[in-house]
């Protein structure tokens, strides 16, 4: 799979990849209203990683339905639409609008978004996540995936809250909050104070979260965070992921998701692994 926000909404992707070779395509997050995003600079490279503060730039639900969605009529790839809102009502409006779209197979709920009323991110609180997922579960018959943020001390509790309220799967992790300082100006390297860290630098952290959440829930996990090779992907699978997503690695080369898949397939052969099921969660630790 591709990770949300690292492959656009489909238009560019269709030019760069044979989408049908992917396990699923996940769109960049769509919001109800258009958002212009943050001013530049929006990225800064750190050792083996990338800080970003794109600011959820997107043209809003209406344009997404009209412009991006029809692209997928030409492909069979399962389509997962990532959505975010500033209130439960906004998430519900998005889910309802997508409910009758036959091309949409699943919703990925980006909970790394501030709940404006409560002044904190949905995904940092088990209570807010539970309330959101409960409402969404009633509103949609689509597969419901909750994308967890690592920027909370309670990721296991948030994962369990999502599972208890009917989430079909979890994806993790989103980016880690970080910062970088320009020594000369003593200001942030980004136009915002903080950015989200992704790339190889976060791989060990992401892997740990996948393992911990795997032990705490029964629903399948989509693992991601710094994956650039088949070997990286297999580590996530052994830690408990049922699927994996490639994010920032696509910025190095657009065919990275397919390259990781090819490498993973030959790694399975090399190790005599016949199916993903056989090796998933097989981490030995007792």
């Amino acid at each position, binding site marked *: 799979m591709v990770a949300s926000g690292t*492959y656009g909404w489909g238009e560019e992707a269709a030019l760069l990849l044979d989408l049908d070779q992917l396990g699923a395509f996940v769109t960049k997050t769509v919001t109800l209203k258009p958002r212009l995003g943050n*001013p530049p600079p929006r990225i800064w490279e750190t050792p083996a*990683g990338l800080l970003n503060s794109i600011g959820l730039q997107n043209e809003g639900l209406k344009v997404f339905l009209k412009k991006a969605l029809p692209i997928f009529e030409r492909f069979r790839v399962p389509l997962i639409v990532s959505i975010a809102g500033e209130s439960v009502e906004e998430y519900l409006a998005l889910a309802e609008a997508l409910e009758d779209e036959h091309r949409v197979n699943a919703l990925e709920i980006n909970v790394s978004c501030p709940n404006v009323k409560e002044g904190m991110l949905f995904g940092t609180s088990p209570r807010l996540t539970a309330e959101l997922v409960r409402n969404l579960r009633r509103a949609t018959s689509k597969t419901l995936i909750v994308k967890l943020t690592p920027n909370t001390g309670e990721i296991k509790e948030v994962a369990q809250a999502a599972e208890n309220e009917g989430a079909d799967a979890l994806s993790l992790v989103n980016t880690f909050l970080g910062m970088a300082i320009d020594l000369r100006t003593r200001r942030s390297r980004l136009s915002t104070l903080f950015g989200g860290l992704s790339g190889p630098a976060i791989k060990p952290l992401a892997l740990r979260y996948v393992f911990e959440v795997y032990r705490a829930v029964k629903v399948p996990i989509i693992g991601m965070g710094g994956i650039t090779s088949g070997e990286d992907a297999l580590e996530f699978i052994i830690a408990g992921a049922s699927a994996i997503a490639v994010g920032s690695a696509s910025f*190095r080369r657009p065919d990275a998701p397919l390259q990781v898949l090819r490498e993973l397939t030959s790694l399975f052969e090399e190790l005599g692994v016949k199916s993903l099921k056989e090796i998933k969660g097989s981490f030995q630790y007792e």
Partner: protein
Amino acid sequence: MNSVIQARIVKKDNLSGEIFHMVLETEIPLQSLPGQFLRLSLPGILDPFIPRPFLIFREHGPVVEIVFNMRGKFTRMLSQMEPGQPLELHGPLGKPFFLPDAESYLLVGGGTGAVFFSRYLQDLQEKRHLFLLGSRNSSTNWFSLFYPAENVLLVTEDASAGLKGTILDYLPKTVRDFKPALILASGPLSLLKGIASLLEDDHTPLWIVLEEMMGCGVGICLSCAITLRGEEGLRKACLCREGLVWKAKEVILPEP
């Protein structure tokens, strides 16, 4: 542009100061068009992670040339590499740009921004044209090696080569005397902003070559979004896909 091309360094020259000229041989021809750019990375190395964008100085067959300024982590490593060493090349990227037809051209370039003009030298031969090129000092001035002296007005801040001062000091007079039908400017954002504001009331069409931090080069990360004045209000566009060249009046330049 959906994958990377393997390349090998053929030649590396320190032109002056921190400016380098590098010749690469690619496994398959890049086949870029004027106005396009490429990205370079070190094969198999995850730090630096994101490939760095460079203008294509010249291309012929499987040979690509760049001119770069040593600025930070990646360009320092690049400056220390030797012929024979491998690089990964991503491109060609960006929208091709062909010089709009005009009677005469003024090409304003600051630092390595002037690389952009090299792909138009042939087109320019048949037209009245003038380069106004500037750099901090003679050690950052590499233009004289590649651009024909008779058409170049050179300025350096320390007067070590050409006239003393900055491009902005000489721009109004140059525009008045030379009366170009079109101006194309390439260089740091602060220079482009300065040019745009000096020429605010001038009616000569002004085109600018923009650079921005780029994550992917192909329109999927949105890090290079710039703000355009559209018919229906402000609109975002990816510099890497719809650029690099814009009419100055259509973009809202960010704060440097």
